[in-house]
């Protein structure tokens, strides 16, 4: 699980925050509420998830409960991979 979190954090920071100071992102921060991801960003995120973890994100899985923070994403990936 920690490995997923690190990988996801790195992606979010590099791609959406452009920030090298990693401590600015809390693992439970909501991407939507904090304006970290916009609507085109969600598509970018899903594309990356599918490529990186060799998995398919189904339409009904595309909900904020699965994708809206580093913690939620890591849990989602872990569930999909088991």
């Amino acid at each position: 699980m920690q490995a997923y979190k690190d990988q996801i954090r790195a992606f979010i920071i590099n791609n959406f925050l452009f920030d090298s100071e990693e401590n600015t992102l809390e693992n439970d921060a909501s991407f939507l509420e904090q304006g970290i991801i916009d609507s085109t960003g969600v598509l970018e995120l899903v594309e990356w998830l599918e490529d990186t973890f060799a998995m398919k994100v189904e339409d009904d899985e595309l909900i904020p409960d699965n994708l809206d923070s580093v913690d939620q994403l890591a849990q989602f990936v872990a569930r999909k991979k088991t």
Partner: protein
Amino acid sequence: MCGIAGYFNLQASPEPSLSLLERMIWSLRHRGPDGFGFFQNEQVGLAHARLSIIDLEGGWQPICNEEKTIWVIFNGEIFNYLELREQLIKRGHRFTTNSDTEVLVHLYEEKGENFVEELNGQFAIILYDIRRCSILLARDRMGIRPLFYTFHQGRFFFGSEIKAIFSADATIPRAMNPCALQDIFTFWSPVATETIFQGVSQLLPGHTLKVDRQGIHVQRQYWDIDLHVEESAGSPEELAEELRELLIDAVRLRLRADVPVGAYLSGGLDSSTITSLIRHYTTNPLKTFSVVFEDKVYDERDQQALIVDYLNTDHHQVACNYRTIADAFPKVVYHAELPVLRTAPTPLYLLSGLVRHHGYKVVLTGEGADEILGGYDLFKEAKVRAFISRQPDSSYRAMLLKRLYPYLALSPTRSASYARQFFATDITPDADLFYSHQLRWKNGEFLHRFLADEFIQSNYSPLAAITESFKDKLTDLHYFKRAQYIESRLLLGNYLLSSQGDRMAMAHSVEGRYPFLDHRVVEFAARLPMRLKMKGINEKYLLKRAMSDLLPREILNRTKQPYMAPDILSFFGAHPPDYVEHFLSESALRDSGMFKNDVVLNLVAKCRKKARQGFRENMALVGILSTQILYDLFIANWLVEHPDTLPNTRVIVH
């Protein structure tokens, strides 16, 4: 159409030489290449760069009254000058020219400062009253023509563009204004009278400003878009007819010129409307001008061809691709004098070049229709959100969001749940003064991530500033009208009419005229109920109805396509221009000191990897690049040009 510049001494000053005025006006020669006029005495200096459109022989400025006690320079057009002139002659005024400028001095004699209320036009005016030892600055109602000023060492400087002010005196400070950059990176424009340069202010649209020995007075508003007025009671048929008659008259007035007048044609409803009205109700030989894009995503040539065939116009087009946009972009920033978050002004810069190439100096355009008659997606989005917020649990209502933004409609369930979150549909319209704009601004705040902590004013809040500036105007208004007011006053005035309008056209000495922004049309539209502006989610409903027999069905039924140009694609595609690497290099970023280097460099790396990016990345990259170019041109490497002699000049020393 012209450029104006000058100064007013508030304290006794050493006699300035004419060369100060020459430097100022020479920097505006693109606005008026046909001649330069000057007036100078111990108190003021007035300079005028002339583009001859009305009264080709007699239209020299400055111009004065019979007693030579009132002098005026002015940039723009007074469309009702013939009517005003006739009234003034009846009251005993003697005219020495046929120009619209002369109307101003006599009207001022009659009405004093309130003379502006009589004018139908687009103007920036400087009036010097020798008896009162004062000057009066005035700007048109919607902000079509620009006017800037600053105060430095006992002297008040003014000009059509900021470059004229910076050309006057090397000791005038030139520094970037952090608050304005924070504003621009939120709203796309500075708030209120601020500009991107510290200490330089703009005269607001619909305002006058008096300067005399006592000092610089407070800007006085003489007109505003009043959306609090009672709504019109007429039937849709009657109101559509009234709108059409008003637009015909607004077009007719704007074709008054002693040179031929052309029209811009985008392929959308607004410019097609103007072009059709010219064709059907005037005898003007019609030349039309368009931008076409190599990249199909942005191109509207098919729609343009449709309307050209329908109205049989003599049509010309300029082709844009990534390279032409990138090549012209630094010049665009030089003329805009403002950081821009999109490259969209660039094709309009190229388009005015095309117009000039064909020997035309004046074009009519459809600008303003979206604001006053309810055309923007933003209005539609607010309406849909408000509709959903009444029944937040209805999944059927949430589906409407997908009709607005097709990219969300990847599949039926794909983003309904996301869409509800993105569009904050649990907020009700009256809970937020800026209901319609808050989401867009939140997106803009993302750009603040790139600003250096050492540069910004950390205690400054753009949102607090805009609330202060707008709250009195927006209180008690329906959310749709609030959205219209914000769009008209913020984006239209400070971006569309300036960075994308006046500056891009005047860069090639071309004057834009805007029938939809005739104040009679604006006032009529302000009285319309929302259902006639946007019926359901059918935008500009009344305009479509008014034009139903004058435009092809395909144009009338077409969903509005937002005007855009390729952004990151122009700078990081197959042929990246050399300057991008320079302006976004670590050393250039360090020199300007406005941005967080590592954050910008990460964005640049992402763009290098892939030039097709989301909205926010595009705004950030273009915003940072244009700010860097602006810094280079106006702060670090500012250069004042001054030829040995100016061509074609007239000088009055009093």
